[in-house]
């Protein structure tokens, strides 16, 4: 049974593409047949995160406009051959694809792949409506930040109006020390407001950035907390019951320093 998942957020830059790349690689590592679709036409970057830019021949627009077969436009991952990318165009804009196109495409890919994961553009305009059209499940990515949570809430409302009721949440870029000190929204507050099932809590981790620059998503890197977190999300998508991990907090020494400083002023 295959599943079409759209990764969306409302607010830009919260980690949709990062999530899509990591879930794609993570699921492929577990032996699943996966295809990733970049629908951020004009601002494509999923290919960069996967290190596949130099292999792109055709794109999503070529497919929907009937110039090439889907198969020809798919780019196979270097390491995991059961992972494919359907990139989008760098030069066209969002109006080049409509919801019906994407729905038809998803139904076609569904036949062959276990997971179709769609990277959605930011915003709630046409690009969003197109990206969600063919999806069974929506993953909403947010950050522990008032404005990102506000936008996530709005997106969840939009998804509801489009009759997408299977919605899951990933909270990205958490800084445990800031949560502890009350400078960042805590997970309970976010879950209380958004009230959808949370399937991931990903810490802010420099390794996400350095690995993205190399074109190798961080998932599976056990030295990285974010890498572990993505691996756990993959497990949960596959129906495993995995508890949320405790993040490494700041050390005892740092805490002592802080306490000392507090008592001074």
């Amino acid at each position, binding site marked *: 049974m295959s599943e079409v998942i759209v990764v969306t957020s409302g607010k830009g830059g919260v980690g949709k593409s990062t999530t899509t790349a990591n879930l794609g690689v993570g699921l492929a590592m577990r032996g699943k047949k996966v295809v990733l679709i970049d629908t951020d036409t004009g601002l494509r970057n999923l290919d960069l995160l996967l290190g596949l830019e130099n292999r792109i021949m055709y794109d999503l627009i070529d497919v929907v406009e009937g110039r090439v077969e889907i198969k020809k436009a798919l780019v196979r991952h270097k390491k995991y051959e059961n992972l494919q990318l359907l990139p989008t165009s760098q030069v066209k804009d969002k109006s080049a694809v409509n919801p019906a196109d994407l729905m038809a495409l998803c139904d076609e890919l569904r036949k062959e792949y276990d997971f179709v994961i769609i990277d959605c553009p930011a915003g709630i305009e046409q690009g969003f409506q197109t990206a969600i059209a063919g999806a069974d499940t929506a993953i909403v990515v947010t950050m522990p930040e*008032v404005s990102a*949570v*506000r936008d996530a*809430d*709005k997106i969840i409302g939009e998804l509801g109006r489009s009759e997408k009721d299977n919605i899951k949440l990933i909270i990205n870029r958490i800084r445990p020390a800031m949560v502890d000190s009350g400078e960042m929204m805590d997970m309970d507050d976010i879950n*209380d407001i958004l009230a959808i099932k949370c399937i991931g809590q990903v810490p802010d981790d420099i390794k996400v950035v350095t690995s993205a620059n190399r074109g190798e998503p961080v998932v599976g890197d056990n030295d990285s907390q974010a890498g572990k977190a993505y691996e756990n999300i993959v497990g949960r998508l596959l129906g495993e019951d995995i508890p949320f991990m405790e993040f490494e907090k700041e050390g005892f020494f740092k805490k002592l320093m802080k306490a000392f400083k507090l008592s001074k002023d």
Partner: protein
Amino acid sequence: MSRDLVTIKGGKDGFRLLVDSSASMEEIEAEIKKKLDENPGFFPEGTKFELEVADLDRSVKKGINQILSQRGLGVELSVKKDPPPATDEQSQMPPQYFIQHDGNVEAQEMTVVEHTVRGGEEVTSQGSVLVMGNVNPGAQIIAGGSIDVRGTCRGMVHAGAWGDISAVVIADRLMPTQIRIANMIARSPDIMEKSDFAERAYIKDGQIIIEPIER
């Protein structure tokens, strides 16, 4: 609580004065003065009240008119062509404006929202609104009557939006960005505390008061 002898209700097109016909003129006079003093600045000069009860004694009507005109206010005897207006009005207005609710929210015509109201969503109702879920930041509820949130209220709520100063806002956890009742606005403290008990907001002495309630 004993039944109010005099009730002032805001409707879409102005204020209505509901007077218990069994009350004596002295009682009515004291009560009207009290009501007006409770909400200074609420009734600008020239405000006209529509008298709600038809079977008032003529002398009482006259008395009320006198009390009001002393303060630069007035009674509107007929908005419609045919006098006596009050009874005739009743059949034309939506019923919720005539139900005396004595603080009882249930008595008004009610819009029930069976889900969380999310950011960017707006619920507007002529009567009262009951939300079976949260009202999230960025959401708006606007009600002619009262608002009851069976969950956490973090959005903007406006009860008595057309002037009903007896409207209230109730929530399991009341932490909205703003509460408006009639033409009064209370904004949240800049640092919001989590509330652990149900609360009610209402107008008292010309201010929005928030107090814990049992439920």
